[in-house]
């Protein structure tokens, strides 16, 4: 039997994956775990063509069109026949999905001039899955717009292929093992500030030349990811040292860094399949130079990203999900427990999050049309600043998204990059009047 024959139609409904189970329980009208990936082309986007491209893309990647439903014991995803309308972009990205504006869809596609943005609820997919969706959508749009088909790659799927069950599998239980690590950690230093305007996620983007950034990182003998993480941690350490509350300042600053588990396992899933590492710096134990922090990040990340430790970390979550007691609890009770757990542990274990999608290699025909990409993480429920990075076509885009007015963290990070000899261009989503 050939591979193509073995492929099935998309299922009527799907259980949420292991990582996705927490998000519906913790969402509210005010907050939802939303993030955004966008691609900026070299000319304004034709909405009608994009709508057609979205229709074809959803046929190839059907699980992105699913809606969230409430069962007796768990939330689940269900197929629906409608597709979201292309929306105008807004000044404030990553607002919670709204029944009135977005219907029952778990993502929205927005357009502003030459930019196509996908804002998505984390319950559907992680950033790698959504990147595949966005690039496949963009490739189809470019085909409709200019004619030639963009060759398929790992991140750009061929729409002539049929959907494959391995693309919507929950890979967590498949690769989890018996041994698990304890999930409790020391609470992290909480970043605080003056709350920004309600309903307004502030975004500050720094654009850096990727080759210069990589050269600078190589000069220190580390990767770009480690280099950027060290600068962010250095800035957080400086902020914590100036905190007037000694109780808060004693806590270590921690930067949470998601880890793509597809690097470790041969999974083809487009749903959530990532874990994280909370990188701590114990600033109350003494002075840290930038080199000290670089050294610590390099070795701590090297240790923590070993397959065995990564596996033990997500295996704990899989075991918790498989607990008979939890499975038998009705959904409202489960949601209460998950909400409480998230409030007590979720964001207390890190000060900020930095997710670096790395260098995105675009196929020929697409690379010359794409000017830019951005990755914006919606504001945390309690942690006010998140950082998303992505590199494409020789530029790295570092997006700080925040729910506080103060720009101390990004100011320190970008100034440090400038002092390191890098040329940084900054841009924001502030409203300019006059």
């Amino acid at each position, binding site marked *: 039997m050939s591979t193509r024959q073995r492929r099935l139609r998309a299922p009527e409904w799907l259980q949420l994956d292991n990582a996705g189970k927490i998000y519906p329980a913790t969402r509210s009208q005010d907050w939802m775990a939303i993030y955004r990936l966008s691609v900026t082309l070299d000319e304004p986007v034709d909405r009608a063509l994009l709508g057609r491209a979205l229709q074809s893309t959803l046929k190839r990647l059907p699980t992105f069109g699913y809606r969230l439903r409430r069962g007796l014991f768990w939330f689940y995803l269900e197929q629906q026949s409608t597709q979201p309308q292309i929306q105008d972009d807004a000044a404030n990205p990553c*607002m919670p999905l709204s029944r009135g504006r977005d219907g029952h869809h778990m993502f929205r596609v927005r357009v502003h001039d030459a930019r196509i943005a996908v804002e998505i609820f984390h319950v559907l997919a992680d950033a790698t899955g959504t990147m595949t969706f966005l690039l496949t959508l963009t490739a189809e749009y470019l085909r409709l717009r200019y004619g030639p088909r963009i060759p398929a790659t790992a991140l750009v799927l061929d729409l002539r292929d049929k959907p494959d069950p391995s693309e919507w599998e929950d890979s967590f239980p498949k690769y989890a093992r018996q041994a698990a690590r304890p999930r409790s950690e020391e609470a992290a230093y909480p970043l605080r500030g003056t709350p920004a305007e309600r309903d307004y996620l502030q*975004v500050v983007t720094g654009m850096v030349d990727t080759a210069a950034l990589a050269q600078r990182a190589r000069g220190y003998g580390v990767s770009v990811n480690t280099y950027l993480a060290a600068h962010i941690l250095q800035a957080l350490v400086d902020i914590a040292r100036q905190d007037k509350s000694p109780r808060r300042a004693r806590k270590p600053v921690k930067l949470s860094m998601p880890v793509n588990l597809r690097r470790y396992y041969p999974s083809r899933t487009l749903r959530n399949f990532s874990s994280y590492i909370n990188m701590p710096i114990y600033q109350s134990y003494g002075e840290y130079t930038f080199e000290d922090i670089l050294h610590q990040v390099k070795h701590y990340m090297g240790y923590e990203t070993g397959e065995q430790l990564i596996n033990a970390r997500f295996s704990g979550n899989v075991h918790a999900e498989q607990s008979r007691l939890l499975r038998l609890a009705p959904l409202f009770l489960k949601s209460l427990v998950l909400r409480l757990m998230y409030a007590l542990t979720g964001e207390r274990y890190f000060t900020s999050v930095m997710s670096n999608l790395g260098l995105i290699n675009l196929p020929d025909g697409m690379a010359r049309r794409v000017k830019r990409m951005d990755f914006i993480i919606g504001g945390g429920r309690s942690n006010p600043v998140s950082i998303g990075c992505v590199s494409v076509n020789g530029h790295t885009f570092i997006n700080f998204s925040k729910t506080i007015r103060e720009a101390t963290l990004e*100011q320190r990070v970008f100034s440090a990059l400038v002092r390191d000899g890098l*040329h940084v*261009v900054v841009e924001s989503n502030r409203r300019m009047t006059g």
Partner: protein
Amino acid sequence: MSYCVHCGVELAVSERDCPLCGTEVVNPRCAWERPEQLPYPETVDVKDAHIDRRYARQLVAMVMAVPALIVLLVDWVDGGGLRWSPYVVGALVLIYCWVVVPLLFKLSRPYAYVAVDFISLGAYLLLIAAMTGGLNWFVQLVLPLLALCGAALSGAILALRRLEWPLLDRMALCCAILGIFLLLLEVLISLYAGVPVRLAWSIYATIPLDVIALMMLFVERNKRMKQEIRKRLFL
């Protein structure tokens, strides 16, 4: 192109001043002009409204009306009249006033909540008094007692909300209000019991309260003493 002299970063053409530090960028050769296309549009997404209080109020009222109607019906069918069901219905109304009103109604002043609570409590006790033939007890003791409690609580709220007053002054006023409340309580109980009004236990409670209130007023006005106390009692 313009650079921030403080942060050293180059500003994108859309930025009039530095988004990191707010420093205004003055480039005499190239004054800032609003570009035709900003990186983000002007329109702002608005989150869905918070809980629809009106809908929630109606929903809770309907949910509470169901058991109320059931008990009224059962009582009527079972005994041909209303014998015990008014207690249940009255209790449900009381719960609505004490729990739902503070959560789902937005009254402009806290005194309104106090009024709703005490009026509903008074009405429920009146119902009990009427059904048990104890109107005398209600008029002579419950009604003045409720009025006294309501007045004392409103007085305390009034004192605590005077934020421009020093904290110790506000606390002193609350102590004084509590002392007066206790004195009047004993007077009321004596009148109801039909014994001559002689203040006994309330005096023992009121005197220390008044002393504490006076001490607070004194300490608040004596800066050296306040400093001394702060010095010795700091945590």
